[in-house]
């Protein structure tokens, strides 16, 4: 971020999450992703006159899960509203949403950002319906697929508590992690499961808040951060040039990295919000005990530190995804050196997992545990374990099988090692002479020579000890 010139940036987010249900919000149409256009439609989601909405109870349950995880106050009775506007993707001419009397209000999410504990307040959580998917053609038409019309959304609105584009990104990542833990939505941003709009203003600390500008179309973490960074600079430049920031809606253009003013015709009053007469008030009392929250990411991370003695940053990485945390716990069940196993997973394996996803990762936790137990018992070195791991990944064989069938076990008899050490000393008189003259660095190539003789199967630390003994102890082994 470029210089802020003494300005403070104030950001609030409005996040839309597609809830992972079998059916749509107000009708029993399937909402499976990627089906042929207009094959999952009915009179309700096509907006035929007279068709009546019936609420999907699963959306209520999933919404309550999010509300509780965000420590919100759940309104036992809430209400649906009509938000009226004309657009081709909205066949009824209105969207059914919540307005006043949301499902839940006054929550918060806490997280670490740049070394300090942050708390962002969540103003409200609403249930609402998705619009149809539209494609605009170059010859001035709009093509519509109503499979998406009526898919359930949760709208999560924060207070303006975020103070930088980078923090907004961190917050969105934390929220995404939470929603994935709750299994409310896979939050695949490429599929549009999670989208954000933002409000941003700038002001000098101590002065009243500046005029806010709404930015739409922030559909990736990068887009969010880039758009907010651009917009903050733009507003600062306007103010520095003596101008005024105009309250407006702007659209982020990912190809240029700029926000551009949108010609919007609607103002808040033009939406003519009014209570949805087709839906009686929503009473969620009977649903409050129909779900349980799983262990939440921050709870799991704290437990990993407490229970396994992991470093906080390692625990944080291992609990990024619930499935990864489960993998780790299953893997270390019978291992002794849990810190080593955690480091192994984070440093060696995580990149491979991320490349394909945990479901497709071929090595099961028990198989990985077998590999690490071979290291723990001293039968193979950690270095060799890396090679064995690569072969497990490629060949799908077990660690034990690879190690035993190819004789990769550490040369354990002291006798054998002593022999190799003596040979190495004898074959490298120049190095030995240098060492004895005080150039102790040549121990490296000597260790290498011994390791080569063992075909990498010795513990280098032990080889070093034996070599030092041999070199310092007089004429030979």
């Amino acid at each position: 971020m470029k210089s802020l010139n003494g300005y403070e940036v104030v950001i609030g987010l409005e996040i839309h999450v597609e809830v992972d249900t079998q059916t749509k919000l107000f009708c029993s149409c399937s909402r499976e992703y990627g089906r042929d256009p207009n094959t999952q439609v009915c009179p309700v989601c096509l907006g035929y006159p007279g068709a009546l909405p019936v609420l999907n109870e699963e959306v209520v349950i999933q919404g309550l899960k999010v509300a509780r995880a965000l420590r919100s106050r759940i309104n036992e009775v809430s209400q649906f509203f009509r938000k009226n506007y004309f657009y081709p993707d909205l066949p009824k001419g209105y969207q059914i949403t919540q307005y006043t009397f949301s499902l839940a209000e006054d929550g918060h999410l806490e997280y670490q950002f740049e070394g300090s504990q942050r708390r962002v307040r969540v103003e409200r959580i609403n249930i609402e319906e998705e619009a149809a998917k539209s494609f605009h053609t170059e010859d001035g038409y709009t093509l519509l697929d109503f499979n998406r019309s009526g898919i359930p959304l949760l709208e999560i609105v924060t207070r303006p508590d975020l103070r930088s584009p980078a923090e907004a990104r961190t917050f969105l990542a934390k929220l995404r992690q939470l929603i994935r833990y709750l299994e409310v939505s896979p939050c695949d941003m490429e599929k549009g499961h999670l989208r954000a709009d933002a409000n941003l203003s700038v002001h000098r600390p101590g002065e009243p808040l500046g005029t806010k500008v709404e930015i739409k179309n922030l559909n990736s973490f990068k887009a969010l951060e880039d758009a907010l960074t651009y917009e903050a600079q733009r507003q600062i430049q306007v103010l520095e040039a003596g101008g005024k920031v105009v309250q407006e809606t702007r659209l982020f253009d990912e190809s240029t990295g700029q926000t551009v003013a949108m010609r919007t015709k609607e103002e808040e009053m033009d939406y003519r919000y009014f209570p949805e007469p087709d839906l009686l008030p929503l009473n969620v009392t009977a649903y409050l005990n129909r779900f349980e929250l799983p262990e939440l990411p921050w709870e799991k991370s704290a437990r990993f530190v407490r229970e396994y003695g992991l470093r906080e940053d390692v625990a944080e990485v291992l609990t990024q995804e619930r499935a990864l945390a489960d993998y780790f716990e299953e893997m270390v069940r019978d291992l002794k050196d849990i810190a080593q196993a955690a480091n192994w997973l984070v440093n060696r394996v995580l990149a491979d997992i991320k490349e394909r996803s945990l479901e497709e990762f071929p090595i099961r936790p028990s198989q990985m545990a077998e590999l690490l137990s071979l290291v723990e018992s001293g039968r193979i070195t950690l270095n060799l374990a890396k090679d064995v791991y690569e072969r497990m990944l490629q060949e799908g064989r077990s660690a034990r099988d690879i190690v035993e069938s190819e004789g990769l076990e550490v040369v354990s008899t002291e006798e054998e090692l002593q022999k190799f050490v003596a040979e190495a000393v004898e074959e490298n008189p120049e190095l030995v002479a240098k060492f004895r003259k005080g150039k102790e660095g040549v121990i490296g190539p000597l260790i290498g020579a011994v390791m080569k003789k063992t075909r990498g199967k010795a513990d280098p630390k032990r080889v070093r000890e034996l070599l030092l003994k041999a070199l310092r102890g007089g004429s030979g082994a």
Partner: protein
Amino acid sequence: MNRKLDIDHIARLAKLDLSPEERVRLRRDLERILSYVETLKEVPVEGVDPLPYPHEGHFQRMRPDTPRPGLNRNDVIRLAPDELFFLFRTPSPLRGLKKKP
């Protein structure tokens, strides 16, 4: 009532392209409708709480999350004024419509 009925603004919101004659006629109609609704203001409602729903104490029924087949696509598309590759086709709200030949 609000006499400044902005017919142009309403037409823009409704994405209607009105001729001057239509504008005059619609303004007259809308004003008559609004003044009819205005008569509601004559009802004394002091001390009466707003009642958005007539069925106090009743709440909406919900349904289980079980999919059911919807409409046949051919039937649905047959009702569309215009279509392309089984997608409904409408004039784009983004730019001026080029008339279909």
